[in-house]
């Protein structure tokens, strides 16, 4: 451990001692349960440690609550994805229902796909889903959305480029 690392750890440690109490309460208020709040509090400080920016923080409260808020939204995204996933499953005939193990794997895969799609505009995303997941041809998509073939093509290229860059970014993270 270098001297730099040592002072960074001390800084995070001080932050933790001073701020984890209110942060935990803040998260608990928003989540309504202690387990998730404890998890997210922990995750918040892990983020701070990874970002290696603890030494430069001037205003810890807004800084920490901004990170925690991001994590809160991630958690909610995951929950709401899980919910729409379960609804989609429930709509399938029983014979085609995957086993609980397969379901867990699929949900994780969906979470990752959803992450690729993050940040796409609604129209672009709609086109991507219709093409890649519903398997529609461009003329069908154009007819359904009332847009030109050219736009479908453009939206698709944009969506694929975005997803590819997201995938690369995630592999690097």
């Amino acid at each position, binding site marked *: 451990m270098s001297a730099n690392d040592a002072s960074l750890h001390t800084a995070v440690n001080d932050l933790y001692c001073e701020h984890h109490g209110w942060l935990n309460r803040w998260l608990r*208020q*928003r*989540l*309504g*349960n202690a387990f998730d709040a404890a998890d997210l509090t922990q995750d918040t400080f892990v983020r701070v440690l990874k970002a290696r920016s603890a030494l430069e923080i001037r205003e810890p409260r807004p800084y920490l609550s901004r990170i925690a*808020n991001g994590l*809160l*939204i991630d958690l*909610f*995204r995951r*929950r*709401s*994805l899980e*919910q*729409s*996933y*379960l*609804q*989609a*499953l*429930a*709509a*399938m005939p029983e014979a085609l229902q995957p086993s609980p193990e397969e379901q867990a794997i*699929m949900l994780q*895969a*969906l979470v*990752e*796909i*959803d992450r*690729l*799609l993050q940040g796409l505009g*609604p129209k672009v*995303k*709609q086109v991507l*889903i*219709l*093409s*890649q*997941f*519903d*398997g529609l*041809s*461009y*003329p*069908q998509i154009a007819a359904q959305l009332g847009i030109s*073939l050219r736009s*479908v*093509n*453009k939206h*698709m*290229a*944009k969506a*694929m*480029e975005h*997803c*590819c*860059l997201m*995938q*690369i970014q995630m592999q*690097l993270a």
Partner: protein
Amino acid sequence: MSLTLAERQAISAAARWYAALQSGVATDAERAAWNAWLVADPVHLQAWQRMTAVAEQMASVPGAVAAPALRGLERSRRQVLRSVMILVPAASLGWLSWRSDTPQQLFADFRTTVGERRQFQLADGSSLWLNTDSAVNVRYDGSQRLLDLLQGEILISTAPDAAQRPFKIHTRHGEVLALGTRFIVRTHEQNAEVAVIEKAVEVRTASAGAAIRVEAGQRLDFNKRSSGAVQRSDASVGAWQQGSIIAVERPLAELLADLSRYRRGVLRCDPQIARMKVSGAFPVDDTDLALTALESGLSLRVTRFSRYWVHVSAAAVSH
């Protein structure tokens, strides 16, 4: 690490090629041109491999599941989390609900408390789901299978009966006769409603008018004396059985009123935002989470005076 300019450009080009070839109407000339581009530079090939890796990842979940899941999420997120909202000037919609805890029927055969949902198997093999705060008496005899819905909401999935006894739900507003089916009945102070998921039912109001037939995908409101018109029901019917409320462009006040059925205490909506339109899937088993989603997504302020006293208002605008 970051991408070089050449790599970045190759990814753009690969995405355009991918889009062109996916159209379902790509020509041979286009395919030949793509092939020429592909072999012209190793960077192109690498970019194309990246593109196919993305396509593979997307194909890892069957489209039939992924499409509705991602789309459902899109809807709820766009409106719930990205705070797209429509504010319509207020109408007076003050106290949404006042739940005094005076259970009507403490001694019913089957009952659920606020926030509870349960499934029961009946003697003939029929299934009975009770939604939150509901009570049912079961009266089976030699000539009929009768459920008395005292309070709340139930979902029935009937089983065929060896003795061919009719299956009926009795409410104080009228009676519902099942015709081999799956359906929902809910009773209120002033009226009752039925929504059919499979097959059909027949409704007879308490004052014994003519029977009204309600088919799958339809719903009907009725009271003692009369019934409304048979209407199309939407996809959100019965979502509670899977633990959620599905809202599509619903006024916020209505959604909160629905959520408040699953929690004790007062959930008050500021009249200023009562008509704000909201879409999304909201968990009924964790209404606090649902409120959190509304809060962060719609820039609402949820003030918790106590666990049992919650006020929802517009967030203060900061300048």
